[in-house]
């Protein structure tokens, strides 16, 4: 599974697929009256637009790191790697903009200047922070591809069919929700092994419950409305009612949940990497950077830049996602329609 995700062409295909999904959503949205009204309201929301811009920036950096260029003489190189290939690698720690390495015993001149210093292995902290965008976005994106269809489908089925279908789905998600999520995640990762692919699967398996509950409730509400009764009276099939009538009317909830859930996934990835069960060795991640920086606080001189860069980047993305999620919720709010 992990080998598949590490494949150069699979990665490129995933980036393109991600872009295609976004384009498809926008095209779909532009045809819907409700989405158009929401977009007009969102445009007037300054916080929402700024946070959306910040997210787009992160997405752009993540896409640059995800898109791989095959190399004739070695392993493939990401676009971001190609763009930062001129940044030299030092022997070990160096402070931001320092001219010598951080050793008290044996300070050595550096090969270049580093805006945010370097880490224990001499990697430029800024480059590592930017590269880690890809991990956060890949985890958020792939996991969303797993849990959103699952949660939406099961939620609609439970809310529409009710009776035993609802009972079974409720039983499954209640059972799943009763297991502490971090423990469940860690055990799935221990069983499947470390890797972006397995982590996405583990997160996907554990993340659909909230969305499913939400969609179930909304579907129940929508099922009582006259347009569904009218569709039934006209003899439309269940699947047609679900796909053509109910799904479009709960899709705004899915979008809001996707944005808000994305920040939760990014945080969970960081937590798992911090706990040492997240990303594999060599994969840049904010959680791994924070984990690596944990013991750096007892160093003298203090090494603060790794932790600051990773938490700053994490904070920026999560805050932007939350603000954008709120803005979306406000934009789709029917009370404002």
């Amino acid at each position, binding site marked *: 599974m992990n080998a598949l995700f590490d494949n150069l062409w699979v990665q490129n295909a995933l980036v393109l697929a991600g872009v295609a999904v976004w384009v498809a959503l926008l095209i779909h949205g532009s045809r819907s009256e409700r989405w158009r009204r929401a977009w007009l309201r969102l445009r007037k929301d300054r916080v929402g637009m700024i946070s959306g811009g910040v997210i787009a920036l992160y997405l752009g950096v993540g896409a640059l790191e995800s898109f791989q260029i095959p190399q004739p003489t070695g392993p493939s190189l990401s676009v971001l790697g190609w763009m930062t290939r001129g940044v030299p690698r030092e022997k070990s720690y160096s402070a931001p903009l320092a001219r010598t390495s951080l050793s008290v*015993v044996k300070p050595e001149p550096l090969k270049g200047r580093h805006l945010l210093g370097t880490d224990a292995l001499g990697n430029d902290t800024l480059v590592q922070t930017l590269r880690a965008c890809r991990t956060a976005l890949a985890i958020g994106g792939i996991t969303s591809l797993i849990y959103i269809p699952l949660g939406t489908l099961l939620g609609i089925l439970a809310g529409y069919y009710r009776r035993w279908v609802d009972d079974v789905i409720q039983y499954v998600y209640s059972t799943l929700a009763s297991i502490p999520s971090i423990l469940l995640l860690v055990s799935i990762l221990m069983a499947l092994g470390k890797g972006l692919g397995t982590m996405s699967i583990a997160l996907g398996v554990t993340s659909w419950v909230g969305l499913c509950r939400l969609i179930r409730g909304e579907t129940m509400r929508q099922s009582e409305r006259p347009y569904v009764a009218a569709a039934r009276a006209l003899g439309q099939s269940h699947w047609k009612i679900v796909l053509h009538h109910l799904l479009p009317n709960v899709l705004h909830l899915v979008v809001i949940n996707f944005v808000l859930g994305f920040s939760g996934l990014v945080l969970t990835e960081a937590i798992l990497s911090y706990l040492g069960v997240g990303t594999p060795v060599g994969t840049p991640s904010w959680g791994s950077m924070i984990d690596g920086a944990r013991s750096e606080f007892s*160093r*003298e001189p203090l090494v603060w830049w790794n932790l600051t860069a990773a938490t700053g980047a994490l904070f920026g993305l999560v805050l932007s996602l939350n603000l954008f999620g709120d803005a979306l919720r406000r934009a789709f709010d029917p009370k404002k329609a």
Partner: protein
Amino acid sequence: MDLIASFQRVLGLSLGLVFLAGCGNDPNPRPLRQTRPDGSPWLVRYSGMPDEPRSLDPQVAYDQMSRRILEPVVETLLEYHPFKTDPYEVVPVLLSEMPRRELQADGSVSYLCKLKPGIFFVDDPCFPGGKGRELVAADVYYAFQRICDPKVGCPVFGNLAEYIKGMSQLYEGAKKNGDQLDYSQKLSGLEVIDSHTFKLHLLKPYPQIIYWLAMHFTAPVAREAVDYYDGQPHPDGPGGRERVRPKFAWHPVATGPFVLHEYRPGHLIRLARNERYQTTVFPEGGWTPDREPLLRPFAGKNLPLVDEVLFTVFREELPIVLLSRQGYLDGMGVGKDAFNSFVTPSLKLDQKYASRGMSLEKDVDLGTFYMSLNMQDPVLGPNPKLRQALSCAHDTQAGIDIFRNGVPPVAQQLIAPGIFGFQPGFRNPYGFNLEKARQLMVEAGYPGGRDPKTGRPLELTMDVTATGAQERQVAEFNQRQFQQLGIQVKIVENTFARMLEKEDQGNFQIASGTGWGADYPDPENFFFLFYGKNFPPEGKNISRYRNAEFDRLFEQMATMENSPERLEIVRRMNAILAEDCPVILEMNKAFYVVVQPFAPRTQNNTLLEGGLKYAWIDHPLREQKRRDWNPVPLWPLGAGAVLMIGAVFYSVRWNRRLDV
């Protein structure tokens, strides 16, 4: 009503006092006692451990954490003299005198051993009436039988079975019997002469057997204890209720200076003085003249010198540093991150700690770290040039500089410094040299790191134990070293247990983080790691290295006393290993230790098992230092009071304004 109000006030005050009494800066749990029966202070030694023990069974425990707990509890037949390290000297402990070597008519060798009379096992419910009985030769015999028991899983069985009569037969018999050892079967290698005398019969001369008798594997075991502590429920609880007894592996019953008093997994381990211990006293001499003022007052004193030892498990380095600074830990090893704050560029202790009376000592362990290459792997095994190239590509010094502050020396040979056969001037012919590595890759058939048949980069897998951030960084560092040759290295992260399993099964290409700490100061103890008959699981040859000449020389040198001829053989074996590269040598273990002024080191012989009995604490000085280093700041109290008064004043005014 008044009564209830008074009761509430008294209750509130009492609770407040209780909570206040619980406040304090000392994170250590309360000691078992405050004073000894004679009124002198109860001495407690506070130590930290980075991990937990894996077993406290003397015939099983082999990792450092387990040994740290087990060795003060289990006394050995012989032990290393605490001060004589050049050369190392072994002295009797449970034995009344050194084993007497006897040459038999058939050319084999026996050792006559006599136990000291009047040594008692610690009091324990496993003995009748809960009183520990006297140690007898049958307990040694039982311990040797346990070594042969496949169910016990003694990790050194292979080493001993090769030299002690009858061990292999006993083991094989048990294997045929579904791993069930019949303890009534006789072990011909150990003959019990009388209650306190036994004879060890060897198959061939083996001078190193003396060292094995100084290890806990051969420490006597009371059969009652093994039978009693079976991990099963028994009606031992109050009122005859059922209670699960711990397994023997977690409840050692022995004759050592300490007993295991408390074990809270993941948190702490408490050892308490064995009140019946009288086996050894502090040596009368043997130390260097500069240590005379410190050690002379202890000469001839009963051991142990402290009454209690508390090990706290710290997974992180930071609390160890902070608690040592505050005087709540009695010493610490200087790790990577704390290095610069403790050690100056001239490798002295930083003035701010030196002014506190702390001192810095460098310890060199008799050990060598390396990466193991699997000789049975179809890529690495038949291609010595490839192994040599990998060895040349590894910039070990850079790794030591990054992760160990440049303290340990780069290992140039397998044998650690201080051991017979170590050659100070010897240079590893395949030490770091990137140009040579690239040339060797061409000779190995992988120019530029590529396989000419496929045109793709050569792919290798490196197994690592990655349990923390630093291990992952080390793995990434090692990966980069090899990738400089153009090859691809995939890292597989394992738990410690999984890594051991893979090493035993030979299920790896490159195993990172392997190495060997000497059990005893003899080159045989290093070379046996590459002896062809020592493959896992019985042996420790995890590289699965086999070389006919090396094996022949090993068999020859293993039974020899130290001599110029033996030295010549050792040098030849060193050269063979260096050329064959079954491992990539990394470093000899060395580190700095910060010594507290109140906990001077009374011995630092790293081979000595159970050296904790010599440890001492200057209790009054520690109390004084803790007070000096942890002044109670009164300003938060004052600031709190000011804030409180201000708040009261403000609220009164506010209420008046609102006319409440």
